[in-house]
């Protein structure tokens, strides 16, 4: 079982922070920027100040932690209270559980496809009705693209798949409308996903970004679903950006403002040298852009 390097890094940093706090005199008065921000209301802080009392993160502290750690996210409100027990079963790991909320990771799985654990989505569920699926802020926005199941039709996201799993568990079914937000870019107004699929050949699209827009992230995604031995590339203006060779292997990243400059056309191509396909498995990819239309 391979752990994603980002999660290892985050875990290591957290451990380091905890160790530092443990050995720093007067740590209660020290603001550690890297640490989770505690913005606890007075009544909660009094409760937490009880000596030797077990530290139970308040709902406020938890949501502030989410705000700090989350990147691209999709959420909905169930429209009523939630019994956490109903949804707990879909979690692969539970990182935090209180009477008010659950935080953990959930496997991205549909009836037709199951993503490997590297694609797991974080899920926050609160008894007050809020459900939010998100990737950590270190993950590029392209990671949300449900590339493995993209067949040239609708563009879906892994966040919605996990929200769907939660909704099903909560009895909401498909009766929810997700709203997207990227906590890293408070000034962004739009998310744009552009999908391209190819099989046995090369397929391309062109994009021209207006100079009047502000782009916060120029993300890309590349996913190879089929198991045929081949080399699959994503190129930008004929320059290889990423390569995948194995079945169910995906890569994500970001392009710089210089690579995907505004005011000029760019060609993004997906190459797949496989000689045949199995079922509806393709090599897919595309762009994921976070931007603001007004200055």
């Amino acid at each position, binding site marked *: 079982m391979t752990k994603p390097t980002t999660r290892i890094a985050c875990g290591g940093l957290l451990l380091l922070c905890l160790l530092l706090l443990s050995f720093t005199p007067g740590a209660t008065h020290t603001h550690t920027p890297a640490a989770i921000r505690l913005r606890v209301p007075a009544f909660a802080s009094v409760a937490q100040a009880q000596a030797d009392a077990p530290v139970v993160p308040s709902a406020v502290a938890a949501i*502030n932690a989410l705000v700090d750690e989350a990147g691209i996210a999709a*959420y909905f*409100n169930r429209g009523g209270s939630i019994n956490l027990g109903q949804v707990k079963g879909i979690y692969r790991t539970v990182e935090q559980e209180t009477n008010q909320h659950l935080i953990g990771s959930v496997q991205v799985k549909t009836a037709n496809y199951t993503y490997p654990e590297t694609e797991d989505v974080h899920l926050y569920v609160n008894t007050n009705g*809020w459900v*939010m699926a998100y990737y950590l802020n270190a993950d590029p926005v392209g990671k949300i693209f449900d590339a493995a199941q993209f067949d040239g039709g609708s*563009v879906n996201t892994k966040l919605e798949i996990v929200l769907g799993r939660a909704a099903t568990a909560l009895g909401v079914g498909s009766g929810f409308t997700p709203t997207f937000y990227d906590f890293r870019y408070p000034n962004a107004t739009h998310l744009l996903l552009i999908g*391209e699929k190819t099989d046995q050949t090369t*397929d*391309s699209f062109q994009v021209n970004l*207006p100079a009047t827009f502000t782009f916060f992230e120029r993300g890309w995604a590349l996913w190879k679903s089929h198991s045929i031995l081949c080399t699959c590339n994503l190129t930008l203006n004929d320059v290889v950006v990423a390569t995948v060779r194995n079945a169910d292997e995906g890569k994500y990243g970001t392009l710089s403002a210089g690579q995907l400059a505004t005011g000029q056309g760019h060609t993004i191509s997906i190459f797949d040298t496989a000689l045949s396909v199995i079922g509806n498995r393709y090599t897919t990819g595309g762009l994921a852009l976070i931007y603001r239309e007004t200055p």
Partner: protein
Amino acid sequence: MKTPRVKLILLGALLLISALVLLARSYAVVDAQGNAIGITGADFARTMQTVDSTALRDSLNTVLPRIVIEFADKNRSEPLRYPVGMVGDVTAPNVTNLQVSVNAANRSATITWLTDEFAQTLLSYGRQPGTYDQSFTDAHYAKQHTALITNLTLGNYYFIIRSTDRDGNQGTTSENNFTVADAPTPTPTLLPGLQLRAIQPAEGVTSQATNVTASGSGFAAGISVTLQRGTQRHSLNAVSVTSATQLQATVPANLPVGLYDLVVQNSAGQRAVLANAFSVLAGAPQILEVLPNQGVSDLPNEISVHGFNFAVGAVVRLETTLLPTTRINGNQVLATVPAGLAAGKYDVLVINPDTQQGVLSDGYAVYDSSSNNDLFGYAFELWSNPGAPKAGETAQIGLFVHRQGGKSVLTDVKVRFLLGNGAGSTLGEATLPFLDPAKGFDSTPPLAVTFPTTGEIVVTAVIDPDNAISEDNEANNVITRTLAIDAPSADRTPPVVTDIQINGGAHQTSDTATNIAVTATDPTPNPSGLKSAYLVEYIFNNAVNHWVPIQQSGWLAYDETPDYYGWHLRPIAGMHYLQVRALDGANNISVGAARAQISYAPTSDTLGRGQTRIYRYTVAAGQQISVRVEPISGDPDLYVWSSNPAQSAWVSNNEQGNEQVIVPANEIVAGTYQIEVYGYTTTEYRLIVEIGVPSLVAATAHPPRSPTAKTPPTAPVLAIANTPDDRQGAPPSPSATQTTVIRQLFLPLVRR
């Protein structure tokens, strides 16, 4: 989707076929009226219907910029919306690291700060404290903020920052300020072009002319130089401007003895004033007043002796005890009464080097610290409201009563007010319900009085007139003050002092030479116009536990808004308050809390054992304050208090070495911080205070603490909210003819 190359081939083939078909046809080309137009020899011809190009352009104008996508299989756009309801943040953003950079050359200021969460920016600013009529807005969310303000003019700007986070929580900083000055200087500058800073020598004898040199700025040919006091104007002779910053002149002989303001006026009519600048001396010293005129035996006491003819080298003695003396000018010397003197009354002497001396009999009283009880008052605390009562109209008068010593609370302390020097009619009585022992201090309730006619009157207040309270000193209970009663005027509204800036709002100075900017208005209805300003400088004397008016001006002309006055603080370390009163054309005097504070921190200061020096600084949210006391000799201790009475002091009371306290930004209670340096033994020390954002203040850790048996105080020596009372510092009569050129003296009439 096929590749572009395939698409292009198909499109080319289609165009080729179309062209071949068109060439095979014949054309009948007609003009706009339907007439046929003959064309010969052409291979191809085509007409196009013209359309209204304006409509097309308008239509195209509705196409907004967009991301153009070609040949993609699919795309999807989603708006991004912050989940306000889910996050439910109720905490406003916190502003830190506030920094201001003023570009004097292009009249702009760049203000940067950080917020602890994403927040929008609204920076509001203006020229007056509390009034922000301009703003800089940035609707983008950020944690690092920059506001560039342009088109500024010279002078002070005041601003606040409102930060709004994504949940709509809004936080507002306290007021900050910056100064746009012609040249970048460490000290914020509010100064006009013409300034006066000093005069040398600052005194002369009346029997002969005195050549003087004045320093300042903006001097030019045609400037006039005068010594002024009240209605007196004495022009200096032989004025010679040697540079823009220096001029020479001659003070004529035979000027009346006393203390004068130095006034210069350029050819454009601009004036500069250096208050209390020049003393004219003649003959032997004469003592008029000692402030304070008493103290306890176990604490050293810093006193101010006022009078005439105090020559260079003059010293003060309490009978046979020579006091350490600092001569301010020919009319004031400061001296320190040591601890340990026997209780009793002492004659005060000022002795010039030529052995001429002045004596004030029983001018100072020493009380036994453990057993004494005395009531007394000062003329500067015999107050009236309005400051200049009107004939036939009700006014209020009152007196602050002090109590030295005592063991229990006194009740019903009576004060009788009389018209005249004690022999006139009784105006009425006012009774203090309670007066605490051990340096108690309070004002009587106001007594309503009506003065029927105009002119100068003397009001006398007699403390404990029926002698119901046994005191160690019954001779200091009678206080007098002269009031000028004016005729009622159409302008019945007193002026208002809206702003006082000492050195442009600086916290601290190590130089006694300061510049005071006073802003006042004369409100409607029927404003008669601003005429004068009156300044009183207070220090806090912890030996007697009350504020002492260490220096006053006369009524100084108020010519412009703001008007500027050169002012030399009296050289006593610690906080100095400048109280200002304004006078309008109808002789209405402003009331209220018009005062500003600056801490005077000289290169070094000395304290006797048990003596405390108090400094006050304003610290804003996001800043930290670092205080270090470096002993040169002896053992000073350091206590720092915030304005939150629930907080105990930050303490550094080592038995040797430096004392240091750092209050970090996250513990700052925005507002006043009081620094108390306590002489655990007689000590000379140096104080270093740094206030700023943490990155700007040396983040030196607290020094190692050595074990100490010292017990830190549980309360500040003086409550942080304690400032000179609004009613103190009674201004001189605005219409009184000043027959003497000594500053108003608050001389208690000793009788009984």
